[in-house]
């Protein structure tokens, strides 16, 4: 909302500067987002009188003017505007003047003619073209004939004003008008509000002889008032009114339309002026539109209506969409003489429906939607009628023709001073509270610290005690509220076990060399199903109105976005990358989403290129399957899950079929690790890339036993190495399992230290060498014990796999 400082001063006494005022308003609860000076650095612009205007001898499009710029001084000025003419009062930038953008005016010769200054358009004085009255939009601005030559043109044009831009929260719709802001400022500055003059002398004619009003549903339209103003003369509105409209961001059109806009800004009450002679009847009927009914609105668009829209009709056909826009047929035109002035209260739901469906948002519709002062409708109507009489020479017919209730009763809300102090932490007295309500213009009764406050109709946002506490608190001043500390008992805060473990996972992965990425949860419908291992019965979840296809569907895997991260960086020549993400995925198993989907926190990583290198010592390790598996093994050890995790080869869509392992916890899949499918790598233009994805929720929620200290070995261990020859397809993991089982209690460590699959081996065979460490923490082992255990291992290996010792 744009508020003119000068306009505001008409209703409330302000003795501080615009920026000081803005600061006080902000501190009391309405954020002033900007204070804009309408004088954008202008000086030296005066009123001039064009005494003579002749064609430039050497240029078709230029005129040479003799302009009286006051004190008997007449200057010759060359002007290129098509509308300059003898007899006009104009704004003249004299030599030495400065215009917006620090544009300095100097004496000049234009095609051989002296020019001592410049006759200005409003745009040249810093006014936005879309706010300039249409007839002056492409030329100079012509001022009223009573302007005094030589006087400051900025005063006439109100360009010494300042505009406050208010950032209004939805509860403060009362400040969507100058009067509302005046009440707020009056409360802040401890001043009174001077109301506008709404008096006029009615003619002898009666409005009811010209029109009747009927409302079909009072729920849709609780009040409709119509006034008749006869014999108006359409023309431009006075400069002071145009200036205020422009300062508020509204373009002047003609006196009647400008008055409705002016009163809208002043009172917050939307008004509409119909050309009475073009109504097509002598009645107004307010009803729901018929489904599919048409109206041509005054922007000359044909609109198709719905039965949720409210229309004003002449008893037969719609002549306006209630609260949104008038119809073209009954629009005020240059030849209009009789005006029907509508002042109504439409239900916000009806206005919102039509405004949304028709894509029409206006100053009027947005006010109806946000709520207007129910009891200000009649005053606004009288104000507009008075202005139409004064400015447009109209005769106001007596009375207002009405349907519905003109005003509603106000209500009261109680506030207990002790509860207020309890909630704010203050010690405000009843006397101070009374003074605050006086400043706000709220009437009240008080007994024993309980205030019974009559809520003014302009403040429908106040409905409960807390609302009054806020009003009292903000006027009292939040900077006067003390700083205290919670009285409640101190309890320890802290992370839950899962939260701590999730942090542990992040710290571990970062320690292992991965950078954390954060990507979007919304992706394409296609990508949302990639890498899914959730079975077939999952349904992608798409939002109803996505901003783009690219961000339309919730992810079931973090990998598609991590691959985008690899691509993004690769496109910027960053080829060695190691990233991970921890975030939610969404699994929906319902054909129609009735209940919330399952949500899991996943942790996934993607690594490509060189993982480790130390160039001058010749060390260079490119990522492979075992780099990632090693990271996962370390992670599982960190989570105390190593012994319950298995890696089994398996197939995942978009993964390399021979280089992917399903990760299982207690035999149940919790993720996978492996190389991207080469075809996908090629599609994405990536080098060999390895990824993993784990369900972190499952990992952190797995119950683990309390760690117990293991006695340190005090007795020597005995190590035996064995080299085995087995079938090439036999997974090494199976050998580990069998060795562990057969070795028994005494076998404490098994390490694979060699793998050979070369030409020295028999076809289809490979050799694996293990180092087995035996010990007992309590005593020295005898040779015999070790031999027994070790023979058990060898026997078991032979039985299970036909494994032979390599000769």
């Amino acid at each position, binding site marked *: 909302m744009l508020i003119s400082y000068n306009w505001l001063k008409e209703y409330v006494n302000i003795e501080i500067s615009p920026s000081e005022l803005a600061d006080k308003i*902000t*501190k*009391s*609860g309405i*954020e002033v987002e900007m204070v804009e000076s309408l004088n954008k650095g202008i000086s030296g612009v005066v009123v001039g009188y064009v005494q003579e205007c002749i064609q430039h001898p050497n240029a078709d499009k230029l005129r040479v003017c003799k302009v009286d710029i006051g004190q008997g001084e007449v200057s010759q000025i060359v002007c290129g505007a098509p509308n300059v003419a003898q007899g006009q009062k104009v704004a003249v930038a004299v030599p030495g003047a400065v215009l917006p953008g620090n544009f300095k005016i100097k004496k000049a010769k234009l095609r051989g003619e002296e020019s001592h200054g410049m006759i200005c358009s409003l745009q040249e004085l810093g006014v936005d073209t879309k706010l300039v009255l249409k007839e002056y939009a492409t030329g100079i601005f012509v001022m009223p004939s009573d302007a005094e030559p030589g006087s400051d043109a900025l005063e006439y044009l109100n360009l010494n004003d300042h505009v406050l831009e208010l950032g209004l*929260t*939805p*509860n*403060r719709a009362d400040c969507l008008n100058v009067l509302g802001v005046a009440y707020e400022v009056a409360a802040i500055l401890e001043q009174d509000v001077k109301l506008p003059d709404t008096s006029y002398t009615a003619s002898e004619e009666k409005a009811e002889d010209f029109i009747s009003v009927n409302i079909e549903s009072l729920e849709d339209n609780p009040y409709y008032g119509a006034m008749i103003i006869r014999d108006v003369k359409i023309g431009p509105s006075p400069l002071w009114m145009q200036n205020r409209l422009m300062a508020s961001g509204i373009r002047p059109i003609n006196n009647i339309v400008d008055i409705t806009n002016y009163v809208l800004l002043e009172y917050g009450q939307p008004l509409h002026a119909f050309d009475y002679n073009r109504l097509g009847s002598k009645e107004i009927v307010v009803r729901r539109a018929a489904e599919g009914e048409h109206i041509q609105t005054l922007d000359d668009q044909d609109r198709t209506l719905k039965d949720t829209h409210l229309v004003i009709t002449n008893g037969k056909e719609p002549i306006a969409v209630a609260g949104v826009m008038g119809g073209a047929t009954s629009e005020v035109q240059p030849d209009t003489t009789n005006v029907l002035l509508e002042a109504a209260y439409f239900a*916000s*739901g009806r206005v919102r429906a039509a405004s949304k469906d028709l894509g029409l948002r206006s100053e009027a519709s947005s006010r109806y*939607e946000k709520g207007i002062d129910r009891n200000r409708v009649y005053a606004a109507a009288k104000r507009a009628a008075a202005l139409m009489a004064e400015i447009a020479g109209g005769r106001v017919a007596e009375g207002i023709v009405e349907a519905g209730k003109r005003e509603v009763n106000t209500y009261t809300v109680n506030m207990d001073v002790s509860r207020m102090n*309890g*909630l*704010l*932490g203050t010690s405000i007295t009843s006397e101070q509270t009374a003074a605050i309500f006086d400043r706000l213009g709220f009437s009240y009764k008080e007994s024993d610290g309980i205030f019974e406050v009559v809520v003014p109709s302009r403040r429908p946002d106040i409905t409960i005690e*807390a609302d009054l506490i*806020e009003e009292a*608190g903000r006027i009292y001043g*939040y900077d006067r*509220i*003390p*700083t*205290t*500390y*919670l*009285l*409640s008992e*101190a*309890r*320890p*805060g*802290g992370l839950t076990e899962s*939260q701590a473990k999730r942090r542990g996972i992040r710290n571990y*992965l*970062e320690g*292992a*060399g991965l*950078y*954390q*990425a*954060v*990507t979007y*949860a*919304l992706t394409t419908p296609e990508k949302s199903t990639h890498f899914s291992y959730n079975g077939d019965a999952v349904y992608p*979840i798409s*939002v*109803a*109105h*996505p*901003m783009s296809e690219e961000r339309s569907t919730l992810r079931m895997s973090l990998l598609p976005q991590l691959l985008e991260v690899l691509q*993004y*960086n690769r496109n910027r020549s960053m080829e060695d990358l*190691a990233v991970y993400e921890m975030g*939610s995925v*969404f699994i929906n198993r319902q054909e129609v989403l009735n209940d*919330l989907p399952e*949500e899991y926190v996943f942790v996934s990583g993607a690594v490509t290129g060189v993982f480790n290198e130390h160039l*001058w*010592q010749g060390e260079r390790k490119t990522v492979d399957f075992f780099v990632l598996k090693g990271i996962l093994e370390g992670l599982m050890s960190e989570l105390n899950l190593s012994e319950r995790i298995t890696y089994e080869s398996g197939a995942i869509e978009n993964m390399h079929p021979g280089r992917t392992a399903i990760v299982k916890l207690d035999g149940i899949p919790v993720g996978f690790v492996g190389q991207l499918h080469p075809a996908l790598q090629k599609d994405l233009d990536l080098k060999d890339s390895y990824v993993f994805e784990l369900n972190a929720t499952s990992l952190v929620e797995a119950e683990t036993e309390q760690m117990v200290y293991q006695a340190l070995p005090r007795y020597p261990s005995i190590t035996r190495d064995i080299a085995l020859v087995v079938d090439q397809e036999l997974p090494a993991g199976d050998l580990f399992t069998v060795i562990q089982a057969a070795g028994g209690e005494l076998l404490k460590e098994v390490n694979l230290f060699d793998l050979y699959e070369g030409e020295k081996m028999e076809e289809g065979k490979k050799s694996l060498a293990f180092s087995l460490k035996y010990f007992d923490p309590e005593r020295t082992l005898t040779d015999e014990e070790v031999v027994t255990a070790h023979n058990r291992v060898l026997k078991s290996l032979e039985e299970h796999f036909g494994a032979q010792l390599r000769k």
Partner: protein
Amino acid sequence: MKDRLEALKVEAIGKINESQDLKDLQAVKVAYLGKKGPITEVLKGMGKLSAEERPVIGAYANEVRDSIQQELDNKQVELENAAISEKLAKETLDVSLPGRPVKKGNSHPLTAVVTEIEDLFLSMGFTIAEGPEVETDYYNFEALNLPKGHPARDMQDSFFITEDILLRTQTSPVQARTMEKHEGQGPVKIISPGKVYRRDNDDATHSHQFMQIEGLVVDQNVRLSDLKGVLETFAKKMFGEDRKIRLRPSFFPFTEPSVEMDISCFKCSGKGCSICKQTGWIEILGAGMVHPNVLEMAGFDSKKYTGFAFGMGPERIAMLKYGIDDIRHFYANDIRFLKQFKKA
């Protein structure tokens, strides 16, 4: 014989001093003190001496032998030290060569900021509450005093999935869920960090997905002045001890009274600069006293219990803290961006 011994001693010490290395020294030792050495020879000839002379010469010979041995030992230490020095001199490295890099990643800047804020509130006795990112209309709006058709719903354009299910637009539904779990019994003292979603076009200052951290305290006798205390502690820990805070009245549907908190600008300390838009103050978060309707809907007696809530945006805080000018940097994950946020 004494003269002979004296001469041998001088000769041996001379040889010792001439020794260049341990090998030379060993040769000297063998030559003079060995079983076939000249001193042994001298001693062998002692039989020819008188009984009076014998012990005198014997003692002298031992003296000579000891002093030669002493000289040998000294020289040995000297030569050994020299050998070590020589070896070390050959082993000297160019210490200016780069070391072997240790592979180490780091947190995303948003996570770093969230973690820092979490730790701060954990130290003040808060716990962390979490909830789903896909929410019901009830918890996201209705339980927070935003019934269907409420104009303030327009403040947040939402990604609806069905009429009743949407991507949460704020982390406040976690507050509603947590209060409900407490079944009307205080105290509640939580923060809820997480991702939220709004229908916005992504540009330098808007993101359709962003982070939020909200806090909630519900108990008997919780006051706006207590909120001020908590927020002041937060502001000083997060932005520096000499920060001042200011509360401005504002509006949020789930709090009444509602406030916005500004901190004194950490760049210019209030004089006015581009960061604070010349006002000396920087808007950091929104807060307020929990609306009685919200308390009642969650099963708390609003006559007995009061509470405060606050909410802030980690993106904004990270942008202020690190001087980042475009919110999209957080989600592009350019590795050159991510690598800048090593833990300090």
